[in-house]
């Protein structure tokens, strides 16, 4: 690997695509001057006079420190939620287990779901990885609003603490499921402050997410390095931009819904509960307040949320696959448009979670839901196209990404089934759905999420993780994953509802559940190995170097870990692979079109080693 110490434009390789996508030199208006993080910061890029120790952590506004705090907190939440899942699975390994009471069981799956979705998957992606990686990928010195970024983290942390406080309060934690359906979540049906604590936790983390969304969008719009046009941004950054916009669409709806729910619980309103005012029309007394309204609001947030949890992870996979195939991402523009299409469609499908209410417009929601399969399919084929004719290197992140492809394929196919209302009628709220959403969510948040973790770990810590242990982690997770969730499809089709703490013993459901529980423990074991790996890397550091994977994007150009304001020098940015272009001046991407390809072939006459 080229070790770059000093880069100037003079050293730069011939710009790929010269003469193809060059714009005429537009005159630069004075307003635009002064954009560009580079030299302006080289002189005072180090925060040497800043505080140290715990105070450093409390006061840091560096996106890298904040990103890392996010990541550590969210992984801790993941382990907590995982332990809860083990208890749930143990309870279900026999039909009438007395391990947990019904009440405890309801608390556990509610908290498991809430932790996994609100406190792990999302924050890990857009608070952790994106916070760390996006400014680096676009050559920015920090996020656009560093103090707001820090505030996001503190709201997230206090929100997480608030959520966990549920277990300590009288009456126990919230037990109305992660969707808090009204009127079960009302004060009459769920008294006790567990529910209130849950609401406040989500208000805090909701604001945290909104601030992060603002920050991501502003950073990507305003802080790109010169030459880093929108259509040269790495796909991960693109996906985080779209995720940021989705956050801004979805989270305000959740937060306002939660505030209304809190009013229902404490201030006597009846927004989501039937009751309160009585409209007398003729002889009929109608009542106000609508449980359906909660479902509409919740899922208007909830379905985009599902994609807020998916797009970042699609982005990770789109970074990892090309690097370890040693090729550019196939169909870059198609990838970008597919991301936008998924995001746009995902905001119009919320009521596919409400098919069985008998009160929604079935064809509208089912058509838009089915349509999401198209851009998702485009992504799949692009991922496969990226690997096609490549030289695949099966490092740990690559294995996790392939695991994602297989897991998400299965979850996606069953998702298409569920988008068809009659099939949803037959399977809604059964273990079929539990299996479906776990295959999707574990595929994204766990397989792709930890692909990103293994991929960027060397950049963050300047150390390598042990690849053998990483592979053990992957293979155990992979086996455990299928063992856990495949039997759930079967038992779901046999009619086992979700969220049950016990089930009849004469229906032959137990064997499937036992297998599923065994699988869950295999998954747990695999994450034990990850801890071991982290510990080993901490005890015996193996230096990573700046660019251990021979990767493509800008973040691999700077040191590992990067300096305070990220870059002292930048290579010229002439494609979405500036680092690769710099290191492999003769292996530029084959651009669009046949003529361009012929020109490329002529240039390729002399192959490089």
């Amino acid at each position, binding site marked *: 690997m080229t070790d770059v110490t000093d880069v100037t434009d003079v050293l730069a390789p011939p710009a790929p695509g010269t003469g193809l996508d060059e714009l005429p030199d537009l005159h630069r208006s004075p307003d635009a001057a002064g954009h560009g993080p580079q030299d302006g910061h080289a002189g005072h890029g180090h925060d040497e006079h800043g505080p140290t120790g715990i105070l450093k952590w409390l006061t840091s506004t560096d996106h890298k420190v904040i990103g890392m705090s996010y990541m550590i907190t969210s992984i801790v939440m993941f382990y907590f939620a995982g332990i809860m899942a083990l208890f749930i699975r143990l309870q279900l390994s026999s039909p*009438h287990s*007395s391990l947990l*009471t*019904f*009440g405890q069981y*309801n608390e556990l799956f509610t908290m498991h779901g809430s932790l996994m979705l609100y406190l792990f998957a999302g924050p890990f992606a857009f608070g952790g990885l994106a916070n760390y990686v996006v400014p680096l990928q676009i050559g920015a010195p920090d996020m656009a609003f560093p103090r707001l970024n820090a505030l996001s983290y503190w709201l997230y942390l206090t929100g997480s603490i608030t959520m966990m406080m549920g277990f300590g309060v009288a009456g126990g934690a919230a037990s*109305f499921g992660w969707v808090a*359906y009204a009127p*079960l979540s009302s004060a*009459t*049906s769920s008294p006790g402050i567990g529910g209130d604590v849950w609401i406040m936790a989500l208000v805090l983390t909701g604001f945290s997410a909104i601030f992060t969304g603002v920050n991501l969008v502003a950073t990507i719009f305003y802080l790109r390095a010169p030459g880093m046009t929108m259509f040269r941004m790495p796909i991960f950054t693109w996906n985080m931009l779209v995720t940021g916009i989705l956050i801004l669409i979805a989270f305000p709806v959740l937060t306002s819904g939660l505030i209304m729910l809190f009013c229902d619980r404490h201030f006597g309103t009846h927004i989501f509960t039937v*009751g309160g005012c009585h409209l007398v029309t003729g*002889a*009929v*007394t109608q009542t106000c307040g*609508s*449980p*359906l309204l909660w479902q509409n609001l919740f899922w208007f947030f909830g379905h985009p949320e599902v994609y807020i949890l998916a797009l970042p992870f699609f982005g990770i996979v789109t970074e990892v696959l090309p690097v370890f*195939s*040693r*090729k*550019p991402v196939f*169909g870059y523009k198609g990838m970008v448009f597919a991301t936008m299409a998924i995001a746009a469609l995902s905001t119009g499908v919320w009521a596919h979670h409400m098919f069985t*209410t*008998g*009160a929604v417009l*079935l*064809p509208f929601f089912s058509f838009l839901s*089915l349509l999401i*399969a*198209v851009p998702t*399919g485009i992504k799949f*084929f692009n991922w*496969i196209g990226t*690997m096609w*004719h490549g*030289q*695949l290197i099966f490092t740990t992140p690559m294995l996790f990404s*392939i695991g994602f492809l*297989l897991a998400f*394929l299965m979850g996606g*196919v069953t998702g*298409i*089934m569920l988008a*068809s209302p*009659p*099939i949803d*009628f*037959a399977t809604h*709220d*059964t273990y079929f759905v539990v299996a479906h959403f776990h295959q999707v969510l574990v595929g994204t948040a766990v397989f792709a999420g930890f692909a990103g973790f293994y991929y960027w770990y060397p950049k963050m810590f300047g150390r390598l993780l042990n690849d053998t242990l990483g592979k053990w982690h992957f293979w155990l997770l992979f086996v455990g994953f299928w063992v856990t969730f495949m039997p759930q499809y079967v038992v779901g089709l046999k*009619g086992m509802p979700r*969220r049950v*703490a*016990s089930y009849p013993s004469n229906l032959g459901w137990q064997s499937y559940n036992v297998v599923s529980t065994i699988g869950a423990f295999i998954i747990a074991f695999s994450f034990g190995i990850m801890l071991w790996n982290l510990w080993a890397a901490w005890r015996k550091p193996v230096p990573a170097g700046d660019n251990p994977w021979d990767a493509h994007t800008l973040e691999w150009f700077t040191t590992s870990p990067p300096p305070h304001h990220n870059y002292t020098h930048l290579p010229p940015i002439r494609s979405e692979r500036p680092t690769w272009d710099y290191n492999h001046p003769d*292996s530029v991407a*084959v651009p*669009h079109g046949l003529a361009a390809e012929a020109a490329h072939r002529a240039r390729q006459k002399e*192959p*490089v080693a």
Partner: protein
Amino acid sequence: MVGTALLLAGCKVPNFGEYPGATTQGKTENHLWQLFFIAGLVVGGFVLLLILWAVFRYRRKSEEMPKQTQYHTLMEITYTVVPILIVVGLFVFTVLAENNVDATPPDPGATITVHAFQWGWEFEYPGGPGSGCANPGSPTANQNDCVKVIGQTTQNPTMVIPTGTEVQINLNSLDVLHGFYVPQFNFSRYASPGYTTSFDFNALHTGDFRGQCTQLCGLYHSLMFFNVKAVTQSKFATWLHAQQALVKSHPSSVPKLPSGVSTGSSTNSSSNNQGGDLYGD
């Protein structure tokens, strides 16, 4: 109708783990399921093979730099257009099946009003001629004249229905959301407070079917079972007449909702007994 014919051609196809459907509606759903399953198998299998091929065929064999291909316009158009066609096809079959499953034709052979509550079910049938309950669930029905079956948690109520005719169910809840689910009918529907939803069953044969609540409804959600007993139409008529006579002669025999459950769906109330495991074992 073309769709139905095509679907019927799938009769000999396996059920892929699902129930064949004990009602006409459930059967239609099952055919749709078969179609989606096969489509999923074909498309998913194809993509799976591509992935596996890429993974095994293109693992690194040399240091040679692979060609840096980035676009292939024709290919990209193909894999945009073909999925759109597949999806539109699936949507058409979905709508056909949905219209069948969701239809509630007038003049059903029987009408049953179902109230779900924490944690049990109430099934209401009309009272006999002359009683104040011809149409249970309507505001004018005299509840004391209706034929009712009520059961909660450990004693599962049984809903008796006739076969070979449309049975209309009018469903709502007296407190929180519940889910009315009969696995062998391949059907479920939320029971919600605030509005009543209607759907039809047309049982294909006699038999006993288990039903269960699917929507989380609090502490004893796991125990909200019921049974559906499908009998011939004459048996059903005999049973209903006997019940109606019983209501007339012994009004006190009409079962009552447990205390704490409100009878109207206008308010939320519930007993919040924080008990433990009902099984006690």
